[in-house]
């Protein structure tokens, strides 16, 4: 693929002697490092922490929902639990997970650059993120917030007596981190590509991150300002969104969803990028329809900005507005389906090997398709009115966000873990956890489709008795899912010390990141690589390399 020196003999005998991990062991060398790989690890630690905080809230309310009357907490606490789960998971796990962890680590490596375009800004964005995260943890754990993650006005701005200001401030602050990360990606991908790495030779993960970066740049400021206005209304008690004071609550919903719908694509587009890399590698084939997958990422990013009104079908917005939003929401399914079809076509007659990352990727394709198809049901106004505000919606977006985004994230972590750490994890345990997560996920959320269709509203702390069986099933699934998430946490940590050393390219895969040593050295490349062929040239790999994955 490129003109790079082969692995030096010394490295094979003694292991890599100089890399980004052993470049320094002090706390300072981590907290003040502008190396994109170290910043990625900082993000990895942070989002893992936030994931378990958000997960703990989910564990508590799933236990609570075991009985119709509620088992564990007061109604007020229940409200605070699902709000904490939503806020922490959306803004502090899902949005930063793949972009800030895998994106930070991989973008410069994949494009043959030494670092991001603005390395200091990159580190700064982690600190801003942590400041926002600290505010959010403080707001949700000490006192709590009861508005739901959507901060709907006028409840949030005039009536709620919980930590709304602190939580909104947390999201406000973290927004700047997201903007700076997106800016760094867009500029890096434009300006830092290695010689010969033209746009249509880029790995599709890069295309996905590029589209994600654009959404972060253009969406986040609007949410930031909307939350600032909520704060101002809350402090000054002057109408902006409160209808009693002449404000318009729909304006808030428009501003909120203008960001928060595209935010779904911030979560799922990078996952799609990860899945594309994995599918090509474990089918030993060049990807089917490269150009379509690349351009569909941009199509999702742009059409995705025009569909926010489908969150507001019953809010009182204009019916004709609703019809347009409904149409556009159907439209955004096309580029998403293009990706699914292209992955499937890549699988066709590929030499598929079911290694752990591939299990996650296949899980993603199935679950995302379910999430997407139920999304089409919700995009139809008639159906949406029937299931608005029910568990059907909850199940739908969890199929996208957890079945999609989190599966992709875990697949990516498993795929690039040998590159990030230089170690291999236990295949047996990782396959087990992938299967557990898939089973647990479906057991948790499939019953919620049924519950929602039968009319169980979301965000209620109690429910009629006939819904108990399905709720117990869901809670049982959640416990399996929780166990499934704890497993990778354990065996990946274990692998850091006891895992066998990974070579440069354990799978083996194409792509510049696999040409570096594992873990890569601080400068990434000793000699700047020159690229002279397309991505995913698996068909050009030698016979001996083909069957080894």
């Amino acid at each position, binding site marked *: 693929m490129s003109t790079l020196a082969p692995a030096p003999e010394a490295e094979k005998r003694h292991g890599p002697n100089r890399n980004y991990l052993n470049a320094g062991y002090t706390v300072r060398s981590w907290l003040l490092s502008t190396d994109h790989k170290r910043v990625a690890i900082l993000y990895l630690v942070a989002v893992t922490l936030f994931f378990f905080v958000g997960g703990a809230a989910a564990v508590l309310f799933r236990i609570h929902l075991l009985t119709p009357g509620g088992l564990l907490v007061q109604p007020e606490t229940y409200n605070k639990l699902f709000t904490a789960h939503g806020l922490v998971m959306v803004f502090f796990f899902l949005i930063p997970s793949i972009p800030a962890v895998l994106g930070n680590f991989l973008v410069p490596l994949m494009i043959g*650059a*030494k670092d991001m*375009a*603005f390395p200091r800004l990159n580190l700064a964005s982690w600190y801003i993120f942590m400041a926002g995260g600290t505010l959010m943890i403080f707001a949700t754990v000490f006192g709590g917030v009861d508005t739901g993650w959507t901060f709907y006005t006028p409840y949030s701005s005039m009536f709620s007596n919980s930590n709304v200001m602190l939580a909104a401030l947390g999201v406000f602050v973290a927004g700047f981190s997201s903007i700076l990360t997106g*800016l760094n990606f867009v500029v890096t991908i434009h300006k830092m590509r290695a010689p010969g790495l033209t746009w249509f030779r880029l790995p599709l993960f890069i295309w996905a991150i590029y589209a994600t970066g654009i959404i972060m740049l253009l969406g986040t400021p609007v949410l930031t*300002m909307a939350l600032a206005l909520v704060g101002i209304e809350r402090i*000054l008690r002057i109408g902006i969104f409160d209808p009693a004071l002449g404000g318009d609550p729909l304006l808030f919903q428009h501003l909120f969803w203008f960001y928060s719908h595209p935010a779904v694509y911030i979560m799922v587009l990078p996952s799609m990028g990860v899945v594309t890399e994995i599918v090509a590698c474990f089918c030993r084939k060049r990807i089917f329809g490269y150009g379509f997958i690349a351009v569909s990422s941009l199509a999702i990013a742009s059409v995705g900005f025009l569909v926010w009104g489908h969150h507001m079908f019953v809010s009182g917005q204009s019916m004709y507005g609703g019809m347009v939003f409904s149409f556009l929401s159907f439209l955004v399914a096309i580029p998403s389906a293009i990706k699914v079809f292209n992955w499937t076509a890549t699988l066709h007659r590929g030499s598929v090997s079911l290694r752990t990352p591939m299990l996650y990727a296949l899980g993603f394709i199935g679950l995302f398709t379910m999430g997407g198809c139920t999304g089409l049901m919700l995009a139809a106004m008639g159906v949406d009115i029937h299931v608005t505000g029910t568990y059907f919606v909850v199940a739908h977006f969890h199929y996208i966000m957890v079945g999609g985004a989190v599966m992709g994230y875990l697949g990516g972590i498993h795929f690039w873990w040998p590159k990030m750490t230089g170690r291999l994890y236990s295949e047996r345990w990782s396959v087990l956890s992938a299967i557990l997560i898939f089973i647990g996920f479906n057991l948790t959320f499939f019953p919620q489709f049924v519950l929602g269709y039968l009319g169980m509203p979301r965000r209620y702390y109690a429910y009629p008795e006939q819904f108990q069986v399905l709720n117990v099933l869901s809670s049982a699934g959640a416990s399996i899912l929780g166990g499934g998430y704890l497993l990778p946490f354990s065996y990946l940590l274990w692998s850091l010390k006891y895992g066998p050393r990974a070579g440069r390219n354990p799978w083996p895969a194409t792509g510049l990141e696999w040409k570096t040593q594992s873990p890569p050295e601080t400068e990434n490349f000793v000699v700047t690589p020159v690229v002279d062929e397309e991505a995913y040239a698996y068909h050009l790999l030698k016979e001996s390399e083909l069957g080894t994955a």
Partner: protein
Amino acid sequence: MAQLEMSFENIEQQQATSRFGMWVFLATEMLFFGALLLGYCIYRIEYPNAFAAGSEHLNLKLGTINTAILLSSSLTVALGLRAIQLGRTRSLVYFLAATILLGSVFLGVKGTEYFLEYKDGFVPGASFVYSSPSPGIDPHHVEMFFLFYFILTSVHALHMAIGLGVFSVLLVRSCRHRYSAQDHEAIECAGLYWHFVDIVWIFLYPLLYLMGR
């Protein structure tokens, strides 16, 4: 000569990157102001009379003078950039100083306006006083106009203050001959930012001061 950062191959790439980065940043900025302007315009359409009544109490004379001052400061930035492109470091220093001076005068005038509005009781909140001249105008909606006026202009002023800070650093550095005909990316990027802040004002001025008069 400019310092080459570790992540770049050569100085041209580094300069093109920072320029492009500034453009991308301005795209983000556009959406910050865009959200606020959208809110303002929606309420302006919903309560045209109250917003026009509020607008009448803004100081048109000071606002117009400020517009002229800000536009001139954009000119001095552009002239400064031109000067350093031709290698005239001394002219750059003068033009940067002129920009900072004009920008500070703008903020001073803006402060004076705020003070006058404060004295007349137009600051939203507990101290807001507005006796409606006609029954068709709800004082709450006039207060909403002033709220948006203060939010928009203060966010704009905050951007100006940041710009002035940046220009002060650039001024000190250009006194030390840091910039040359080959190396003036910082001036160009700061200039882009300043022009953007200027353009925002070009939207704010008619929307807040002129409409409905």
